[in-house]
C-alpha cells in the first residue's frame, strides 16, 4: 500500500510554483496582444496581412496545417501503440492525448482566422457543398476534436476518482469537480469492462479518422492545379509529416514535464530510447516521401515544375528549404541512430528542432507554390511578387501557439500527466508475475 501512496503522491497534479505563474502570465500576455491584432484585422480587413492576390494564403494556413499535423500524435502513440501492445507507452499517452486535444482545437480556431468573413461562418453549414474539400474539413475537424477529447477523458475516469478522494480535505471544491468528472467511478467490474470497451472502440475509431484528417488536409492543396500541390503523393506525404511533427512535440514536452515535475522515476531513459527509435522511424518515412515529392519530379519536370523546384533548391526559398530538410529531418535521423543520441537531453534538442522544422516546412509547402502561377505575375505592385508575414500575422500566429501551450499547461496543472491507476495496476501485475516466477 505504501508504494501506491507514493505513486499517487508523485503523480497527483500540483499547484503552480512561481516559475509556472510567470510562464502562464507571459502566455496570457502573448494571447492578449494577438487578440488585439486580430480585432484590428477584423476592423480593417486582411489588408493588414502581407497576403495579396498571388500569395493568397500565408502563415495562417501553414500554421493551421502545422496544428493539424501535430494533433496526429494522439492517433499515433495512443491508438497505434495500444493496438500493437507496446507497453512502454503508459507514461507517455496522457501527454500525447493532451497535445492532440490542444492542437486540434487550435487548428479549428486558426482556420477561422484565415477566413476573411468570419461573420459568415454559418454559411458553411447553411450552404454547405459536399464536393468542396473545405466542407470535408468542416466535418472531420469537429469529429476529431470529439474523439480526441473522449480518448483523453475515458482513461481519466479512475484517476478522477483517486483525485476526488485525495483532495477531499485539502480542497473540497476541486474534489467536488473531480468527483463529478469521475462519473461515480468505483472501479467495480462492470465499470471496468465498460471503460475498457469504450476505450477500445475510440482507439480504433481514431485511426481512420486521424488518417482522414491528415488526408483531407493534403487534399486542400492537391485538389488544385497548382504546381507543387497537384501531387498524388500529397496525402501520404502529409500523414508521414504529421507523424514527425506530432512525435517531435511529444518528445519535447515529455522532457519538460519530466524535468519540472521530477518524474525521472516514471519516465526513464528506457522510454526516451524507445521514443527515439519511434521518431527515427517517423523521420525516415517522411524522408522517403520527401524524396518522392522533390527528387523524382526532377526527372520529368515540366517547365513550371522545374522553375518551382529551382526556387526551392537554389532560389529564394533555398535557405529555408535546406534548413528544414537537412537540419529538421536528416540531422535528427543521424543523431537518433546512436544510443547516446536517444538519451533525454539530446532527444529534447532533437524534438525542439523537429517541431520548429515542421512549422517552417509547412511554410515552404504553402508559399512558394502560390508565387509560381501558370501565367506570369504582371500588372500588380512589385511587393506582391514576394511574401513574408506582416507584424499582424506574426502576432496572431504567436498568440495561437501560445494558446495551444496554455491549454497544455492548464491540462498538466489539473490532470495527472501520467495515468495513476494504470501505473499502479501495472506495478501490481509485475509483482504478481515476480511472485509466480519465484514460486515456480
Amino acid at each position, binding site marked *: 500500500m505504501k508504494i501506491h501512496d507514493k505513486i499517487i503522491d508523485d503523480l497527483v497534479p500540483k499547484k503552480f510554483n512561481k516559475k509556472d505563474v510567470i510562464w502562464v502570465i507571459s502566455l496570457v500576455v502573448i494571447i492578449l496582444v494577438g487578440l488585439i491584432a486580430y480585432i484590428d484585422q477584423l476592423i480593417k480587413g486582411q489588408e493588414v496581412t502581407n497576403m*495579396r492576390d498571388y500569395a493568397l494564403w500565408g502563415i495562417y494556413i501553414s500554421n493551421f496545417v502545422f496544428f493539424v499535423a501535430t494533433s496526429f500524435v494522439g492517433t499515433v502513440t495512443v491508438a497505434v501503440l495500444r493496438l500493437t501492445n507496446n507497453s512502454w507507452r503508459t507514461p507517455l499517452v496522457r501527454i500525447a492525448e493532451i497535445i492532440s486535444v490542444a492542437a486540434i482545437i487550435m487548428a479549428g480556431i486558426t482556420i477561422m482566422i484565415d477566413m476573411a468573413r468570419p461573420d459568415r461562418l454559418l454559411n458553411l453549414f447553411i450552404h454547405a457543398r459536399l464536393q468542396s474539400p473545405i466542407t470535408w474539413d468542416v466535418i472531420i475537424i469537429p469529429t476529431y476534436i470529439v474523439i480526441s477529447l473522449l480518448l483523453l477523458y475515458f482513461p481519466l475516469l479512475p484517476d478522477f476518482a483517486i483525485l476526488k478522494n485525495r483532495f477531499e480535505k485539502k480542497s473540497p471544491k476541486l474534489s467536488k469537480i473531480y468527483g463529478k468528472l469521475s462519473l461515480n467511478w468505483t472501479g467495480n467490474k462492470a465499470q471496468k469492462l465498460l471503460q475498457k470497451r469504450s476505450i477500445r472502440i475510440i482507439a480504433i475509431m481514431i485511426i481512420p479518422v486521424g488518417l482522414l484528417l491528415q488526408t483531407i488536409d493534403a487534399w486542400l492543396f492537391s485538389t488544385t492545379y497548382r504546381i507543387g500541390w497537384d501531387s498524388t503523393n500529397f496525402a501520404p506525404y502529409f500523414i508521414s509529416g504529421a507523424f514527425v511533427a506530432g512525435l517531435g512535440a511529444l518528445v519535447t514536452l515529455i522532457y519538460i514535464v519530466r524535468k519540472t515535475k521530477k518524474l525521472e522515476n516514471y519516465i526513464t531513459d528506457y522510454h526516451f530510447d524507445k521514443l527515439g527509435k519511434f521518431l527515427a522511424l517517423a523521420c525516415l518515412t517522411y524522408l522517403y516521401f520527401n524524396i518522392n515529392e522533390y527528387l523524382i519530379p526532377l526527372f520529368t519536370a515540366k517547365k513550371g515544375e522545374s522553375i518551382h523546384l529551382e526556387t526551392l533548391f537554389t532560389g529564394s526559398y533555398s535557405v529555408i528549404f535546406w534548413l528544414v530538410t537537412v537540419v529538421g529531418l536528416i540531422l535528427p535521423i543521424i543523431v537518433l541512430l546512436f544510443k547516446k543520441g536517444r538519451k533525454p537531453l539530446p532527444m529534447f534538442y532533437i524534438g525542439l528542432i523537429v517541431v520548429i522544422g515542421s512549422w517552417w516546412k509547412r511554410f515552404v509547402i504553402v508559399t512558394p507554390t502560390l508565387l509560381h502561377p501558370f501565367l506570369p505575375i504582371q500588372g500588380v505592385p512589385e511587393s506582391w511578387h514576394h511574401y513574408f508575414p506582416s507584424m499582424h500575422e506574426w502576432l496572431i500566429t504567436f498568440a495561437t501557439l501560445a494558446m495551444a501551450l496554455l491549454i497544455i499547461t492548464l491540462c498538466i496543472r489539473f490532470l495527472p500527466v501520467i495515468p495513476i491507476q494504470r501505473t499502479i495496476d501495472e506495478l501490481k501485475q509485475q509483482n504478481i508475475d515476480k511472485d509466480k516466477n519465484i514460486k515456480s
Partner: protein
Amino acid sequence: MEENSKNNSRRKFLNKGLKISLATAIGGFGLSKLNSKLNAKTAIDSGETMELMTTDGTLIQVDSSEVVEVKHSKEHDKKYNVREGMAHRKFVMVVDLAKCKNALKCQNACNKHHYITGDNAWLKVYKMQEEQDTAPYWMPTMCMHCDQPACVTVCPVDATFKRKDGLVLIDNERCIGCRFCMAACPYSTRVFNWGEPGQEVTLNMAMTNHMPSPEHAGKPSIKGTVDKCDFCPHAIDNGELPHCVTACPNGVFYFGDKYEDTVTNGDETVRLSKLLEEKSGYRLMEGLGTSPSIYYLPPVDRLVDFKDGLEDFKEFESVEKSE
C-alpha cells in the same frame, strides 16, 4: 437489480416517447402540406362555365372560377433566375491576338465600369514570350468562364456558381473569403478585396435604388470577398456588348452566342465556327481540362507591331490611380 430494471423501463419510455413524437411531427407536417395542396386545387365551384378554345382549336368548357387573367409582363422573356442564367444561350468570346497591341482601352473601360479600386485589374494584358527564340505577343485575359470551372468545384458555400448560359459568377453576399477559388483557378483571374474597397459607387447605391447582383460584379465590391470578370450580363441585358469589346480600338474581342454560332466585335459579325477554323482558334491551357469559354486566335499575320505596345506596358500597374 431493482434499480437496473427501473433504469431500463425509463430508457424504454424515453425511447418510445422520442420515436412517437418524431413520427407525430413528421406526420403532422405531411398532413398540413397535403391539406394546403388540396385546398389550392378545389376552389368552390361558381356554377358558371365558360367556353374556351385550346391552342389546337378544340372547344372546352371550364368552370369560370378557374379562369384567371394572366399578367402580361414587358420583360417576360428576360426574367430568369440569376443563378440559372438566360435560357438557351451560351456566351463565348474570341480574342484575336494578331490585332492586340496593348492599347489597354479594354482594361480602362473594365476598371471604370466595374468600379475597380484595388491594385489588380480583372482584365489583364500579359506581355508573353514563351522562349527566347519564340515571338513575343500581347495576350488579354479575363475570367475564362470555364465549362469545368475549378473555382466552382472547390467553393464550400456555392458562392461562386456556373450558369446554364456559360457564365461563372460570384455571390458576394455569400462568399466567406476563404480564397480557395483563387488557389484553384489556373488563370490567376480572381482578385480579392483585402480591405474596404472604398468605391464611390457604394455611396450612390442608396440614391439609385440599385440592388447588388452577381450580374454586375463590383457594383459594389465587398470587403473580404472575391471579385472577377463577370462577362457583363448587365450589358447583355441592355442589348449591348461587354465593355472591353466596345472599348477596344482594334477589334480584338469578339463576343457572341455559341448556339447562334455568331460573334461580333462591334464592327463585323462573323460565324464562330468559321472564324475558329480559318484562324486555328485555341483555348488557354486546354490540357488542364477546364474547357474555357474564351477562344484565342494565334498572333499570326499581325496587323500591329508588338513593339508599339511596349510604350503602354506597365509591369507593376493595372489599375490607374486617380490621384
